[in-house]
């Protein structure tokens, strides 16, 4: 990813790949991410799945603790087990599971709060697609006092579409900052 090392003020355009990240674009994409987070936290999962493009690759690899000789293996590979490796169809199946009323890990549902920050945008070779990195903190509480906290980074591929939300997500890479998952399951989305 191209790096821009100079400090930017909120009113300064950032140039990536010869194109410009204007404060307006920065705000537009941040608002999209906040909208998406709100859908998840409001349990509007069907609407959230609608934000995924038909070619979505929703991927959350495993992370391991590695020594210097094997540091390149810290993330599990494309042919390894992952926490999530989802297509639109498999996300829709997850949605249908949640809609059955008998998905006990989310019935009654968890309370979640998706905090999204450190949003950095890069342009891509395609004028209508952006690569967006963000940091997240996801708080989840369910039942009486069962609480999980997840932190990590997302790298999203956003495609501009003619819809009120403005974008669809066609790629999401989620790096969880845990090697042993500190939760009894992942019945929520990142």
């Amino acid at each position: 990813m191209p790096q821009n090392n100079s400090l930017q003020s909120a009113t300064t355009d950032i140039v990536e790949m010869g194109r410009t990240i204007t404060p307006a674009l920065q705000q537009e994409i941040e608002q999209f991410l906040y909208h998406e987070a709100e859908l998840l936290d409001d349990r509007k999962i069907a609407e959230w799945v609608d934000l995924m493009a038909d070619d979505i690759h929703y991927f959350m690899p495993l992370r391991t603790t590695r020594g210097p000789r094997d540091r390149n293996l810290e993330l599990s590979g494309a042919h390894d087990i992952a926490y999530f490796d989802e297509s639109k169809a498999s996300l829709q199946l997850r949605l249908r599971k949640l809609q059955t009323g008998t998905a006990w890990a989310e019935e009654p549902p968890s309370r979640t709060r998706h905090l999204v920050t450190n949003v950095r945008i890069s342009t891509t070779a395609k004028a209508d697609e952006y690569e967006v990195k963000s940091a997240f903190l996801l708080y989840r509480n369910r039942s009486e006092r069962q609480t999980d906290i997840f932190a990590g980074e997302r790298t999203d591929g956003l495609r501009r579409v003619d819809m009120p939300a403005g974008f669809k997500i066609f790629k999401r890479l989620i790096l969880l900052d845990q090697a042993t998952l500190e939760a009894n399951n992942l019945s929520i989305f990142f």
Partner: protein
Amino acid sequence: MSVTKRNDAGAAPSVSLTDLFDEKSGTISPAIYADPQLYELELERVFSRSWLFIAHETHIPKAGDYLATYMAEDPVIAVRQKDGGVKVFLNQCRHRGMKICRTDGGNAKAFTCTYHGWAYDIGGNLVQVPLEQQSFACLDKKQWGARQARVDSYKGLIFATWNMDAPTLSDYLGDAKSYLDLILDRSEGGTEAIGGIVKWVIPCNWKFAAEQFCSDMYHGATSHMSPMMAASPDTLPGDPTDFSGRQFRASRGGHGTGFFVEGAEWLWRVGQAGEHVSGFDIAAAEQRTNLHRSGKRPVGFSQHMTVFPNFSIFAGANTARVWHPRGPGEIEVWAFGLVDKAASDAEKEQMRLMTLRTFSAAGTWEQDDGENWVEVQRVLRGHEARRTLFNAQMGAGAPRGEDPTFPETITNAFAEEAARGFYAHWQKLMTDVDGSFSKAGSYADAAE
């Protein structure tokens, strides 16, 4: 029920351990899932005396490949040796006990302790000690290698034990072997591990997980109704009326398994759910697998199984896992995918997706298991809850089937015969003060 220790003999609780599980009445005292002293006793009498799963052979194929794992609470390193064998040794420096390996896996030439620098070779032998000449009068390095466990393997699965008097792994597995073969030997060339181990924490006792995989087909209809409904929304699972399954209770050793046989409505449903998420055609794969070679009817994809104490497989989702105990009220699940070596790359990819989408931390089936066990464990904080007996009577007294294809089974997949076998063996170990029960010779004795 509380467990207090005798004044004279250190570890022997004064409460009668024989009360904790009563096979005749089919009752379990929930204290066994919650009592810290019983847990300490389990570490000694169950885990240190049994064969424990370590890794699949394909996790560490080349010399120097290692995997840092656990035998119950004890951290160990499994390392492929230059001669092709595997050593498993305690991940504890003999100087002051620092971990000699602080990473999860990879390839090593040696393990050097980061505290004072003692270095161990890939066999666990102490080979280098800083300032040895200057500061140690005479250090016999041969005496100070890492503590070695005994290692054995069965069809690709590596196990280890601290019990030097234990029977061979083959004898330990006993009549459960032919049921493990349904998975491990179902196609030419056996199995290999998909890369990556999913590790997650469930605040529940290890026996809830191990017993369920050993014996509990029963919970599927309720606990896992949602992924089945999601896969085939038009037809609800309804009441399971097709009982054409089998449940196996090992005649010795606490192992158990259960499965449906050909044509069972349930098998079809499980298969359909898998196919829906991954495109993996279970029916076709089942036709291809080589249990047909051995003349057995296809069962593999519905099969749940536990090798006592804490290694389980669910063939339907190609998943194998260890339930590492972490105190009476917590486990770490370490799960990996197990696929047929003979499968094509495309099939392996489908199996990989099916595993992670169904039985894994985020799996649409497995999510709901954790939910159950967490709630059960939380209830057991209650004093009265801990002394209110559980019912494990299902299928009691059912006659063994006459089916020579599946020896030692009852003809009903919905039963708790294997669970009773699991707890009976657990109890034998827990009441075995001197360890004689888990010695090789005693495995020739009568069945439990």
